[in-house]
């Protein structure tokens, strides 16, 4: 699509001032402003497994460490593993001594041929599998330390709260109106002393001393002498990516690689930072690529494109044909206005914009097939400005005078058009006519370099 080919030729200003092509912007129809990716906040909308396309609720996902319970990644190449079935002879449970064929399942990678049998994982009797996860050998110690620190932290917090309470109490006593200040003062000093050093000992929650780790002279990575004599088989040594895929084990040999549950993906929704309305909300179903809400700017703001690249000569006026596309289903009255000088950090050329109003016919999906309507007549267009019109498209001329030899030719202007504010109509419950508002956006054109003179 032409939009993408020339996407950074025509930029729109978002409310934050950032300039971006229209196809990368949102339009908040509640604030009636253009929003860039920086002025929306992202949110996790739903989690799903990219392999089996099952949704997973947030709570369940956090318990499962954001991994699918059914799908596995190959530990050597990260391809998705598939479950293979095979029959092996096995002693029958009901008739001892008799061998019967039994169906068993194992995991295999169709890409690099790795199988769960390579690392000695037991075949499973059910297809879903009860594959064991690798355990972190330090679980117990970490649990112990955490538990200890949590008790300490809880104590620290309690002490802080107690101090606060005591301070409040003592303050109360000092402001005692009934002449008991000496008593109060005595009590205060007593109370305060509870709050200071002696408090630690008198603390009712007694926390056991921690068992600290004991350092030793031993180190456990002495090289084995075989390293100097045995050939190194590179295919048996893991690479750093494979190691990092299992942070708590980080195996060095490929024979210690175990399959990892597949990591989930998310569907993201975007919110306007200012009014917190959703600007984009995807369909919950992972199979669907549709959106429940999709307020992209392309659907709400007239889309300007450059139709041709004119020849640009320094200090000479040249005509540029722009096409504007009306995405709205209303007739749009558009006028172009110059951009205020103070706001303009862009222009390197003078621009002459048409002073007349441009009428954009509403978007009508059927109009494209209707070939014999000559709308030019119906709209009484100013032929010195309007080049042609077709359905909701209109081509018009602007004039540009390049001012700088070395820089790219850039111009800017503002676009003002009327917009039917449906959001406000929704708020006012009674079926009022939607109010018409005037919107104004800044548009920045980059026409490229001067035409080389021969």
């Amino acid at each position, binding site marked *: 699509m032409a939009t993408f080919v020339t996407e950074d030729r025509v930029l729109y200003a978002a409310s934050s001032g950032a300039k971006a092509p229209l196809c990368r912007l949102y339009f908040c129809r509640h604030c009636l402003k253009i929003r860039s990716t920086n002025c929306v906040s992202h949110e996790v909308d739903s989690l799903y497994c990219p392999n089996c396309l099952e949704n997973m609720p947030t709570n369940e996902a*956090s318990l499962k460490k954001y991994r699918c319970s059914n799908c596995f990644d190959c530990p050597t190449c990260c391809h998705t593993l598939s479950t293979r079935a095979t029959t092996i002879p096995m002693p029958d449970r009901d008739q001892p001594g008799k061998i019967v064929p039994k169906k068993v399942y194992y995991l295999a990678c169709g890409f690099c041929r790795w199988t769960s049998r390579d690392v000695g994982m037991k075949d499973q009797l059910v297809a879903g599998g009860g594959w064991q996860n690798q355990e972190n050998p330090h679980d117990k110690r970490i649990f112990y330390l955490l538990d200890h620190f949590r008790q300490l932290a809880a104590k620290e917090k309690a002490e*802080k709260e107690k101090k606060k309470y005591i301070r409040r109490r003592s303050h109360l006593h000092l402001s005692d109106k009934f002449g008991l200040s000496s008593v109060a003062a005595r009590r205060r000093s007593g109370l305060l002393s509870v709050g200071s050093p002696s408090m630690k000992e008198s603390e009712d929650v007694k926390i056991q001393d921690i068992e600290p*780790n004991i350092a030793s*002279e031993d180190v456990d990575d002495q090289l084995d002498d075989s*390293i*100097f004599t045995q050939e190194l088989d590179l295919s048996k040594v893991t690479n750093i990516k494979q190691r990092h895929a299992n942070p708590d084990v980080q195996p060095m040999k490929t024979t210690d690689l175990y399959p990892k549950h597949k990591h989930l993906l998310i569907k993201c929704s975007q919110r306007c930072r200012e009014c917190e309305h959703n600007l984009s909300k995807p369909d919950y179903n992972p199979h669907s690529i549709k959106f429940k809400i999709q307020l992209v700017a392309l659907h709400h703001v007239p889309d300007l494109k450059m139709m041709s690249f004119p020849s640009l000569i320094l200090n000479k006026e040249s005509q540029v044909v722009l096409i504007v596309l009306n995405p709205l289903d209303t007739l749009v009255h558009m006028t172009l206005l110059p951009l205020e000088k103070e706001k303009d950090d862009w222009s390197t050329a003078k621009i002459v914009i048409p002073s007349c109003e441009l009428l954009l016919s509403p978007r009508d999906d059927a109009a494209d097939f209707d070939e014999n309507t000559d709308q030019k007549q119906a709209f009484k267009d100013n032929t010195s400005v309007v080049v042609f019109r077709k359905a909701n498209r209109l081509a018009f001329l602007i004039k540009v005078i390049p001012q700088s030899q070395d820089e790219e030719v850039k111009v800017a202007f503002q676009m003002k058009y009327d917009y039917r504010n449906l959001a406000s109509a929704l708020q006012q419950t009674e079926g009022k006519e939607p109010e018409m508002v005037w919107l104004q956006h800044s548009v920045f054109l980059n026409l490229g370099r001067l035409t080389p003179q021969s």
Partner: protein
Amino acid sequence: MPLFEGLSYGGEKTAVIFDIGVAFTKCGFAAENAPQFIIPTEVRKRKTGQLVNIHKCCSETPQDLRSVLVDFVHRLYFRQLLVNPKERRVVIVESMLTTTTHFRNTLADVLFKHYEVPSVVFAPGHLVCLFTLGVSTGLIMDVGYTETTVMPVFEGTAILKAWQALPLAGKAIHDYLEASLKESSSVEGGESGDKPISSFMDSIDESILEDIKVRCCFVTSHERATMYNANEVSTSPLEGPPAVRYPLKGDRVATISGKIRERTCEVLFEEDCEGRSLASLILDAILQSPIDMRRTLAENLVIIGGTSMLPGFNHRLRSELYAHLKQPPYSEKLSLPAFKFHKYPAKANYVAWLGGSMLGALETLASKSVTKEAYTLQPLIPDWCSLYVAEEKEKVVGATKKLEAGSRPLSSKKLSSSLSVDSSPRSSVSSAARAAARSIAGILSSASVDSNATPKSS
């Protein structure tokens, strides 16, 4: 399995823990026993589409660094952790010596303003890694990518005047490996027989260097290294490890000689022109610590960082320490009965992260964090000790090994004076910072009352 399933305070969701290292970033959730992901600290630049390391963008304009960080943090939340930034507190584990103020401030700005996180705490990695041991005293050596840093911590307080750093780490190994591959390795295959590697590669991609380092190289023993050094390399009587045929792009195969495999990591232990190496870093740090703490520090060594995971690293470091101790200048100044090493319940490259994970699991997290409200009122992030360290650090360490001999004691003096609470004329920032540092250390110091932590005179 998560250890404290669904356990959080006041219905609050568990915090997220980020350790944005120079080469790799560790990310995950509080109270977990390991990070969810270890990923390269890289992001695709919007303009050029190239993968860049975000720390290489530090020198660029604030806007550029910001946009790179926005994209990187987006990846951490929406590609890796899959949670909403607004709902969880953030713990950033940082290396206090390598994180620049510029980087920290931009990161805070991105987290608070762009992602609207409720609170952030910047936790010094050197301190929080002691959480994983349940001790409050240790000499922490972090062998990372660009630098190796050493920081003694006594009773939960860092002895700032004694910190050490040298650019001897993963990057130095890569550089040395590249040079020796170009010099001596030949490549077979392709159209035209055997050729030196330099004939078709101007520079070797860092990912290849890293892969060769990780899969082929190791740190040889002290005895073998001494024998090598005593003899001329060519006449060495030692039988080296077998060479490895390493497949490159296409049908090319490079030969990685045994010498390269065994001797590449020597760059970490060879002394520079001032006689400094990884072993001397530790001894210097001990030497610059108060005399009554030295023995305790030497008996509580904590070696962390991905580069220390090279096979044989710790064993070699131990031998080097004992060997250095017998030689001047240390033989005259230091007498230590033993070096003792801690074994932590983690892999060396995420010990600091695990400490952050423990910090993030505590009820006191809220009181130690900078909240979004506070940041909106005053966009300042208290440095854990003072901004001075970072500035000094940029000036002093930089990237070059060749430091003026006199600059170290001078800067240490400055550092210590900036840290002493009363004399410092610094603004509320640094005093708040000191308070923050103390309270982090506070948990630790109250945590252990064992003989290990009590000072012994040496």
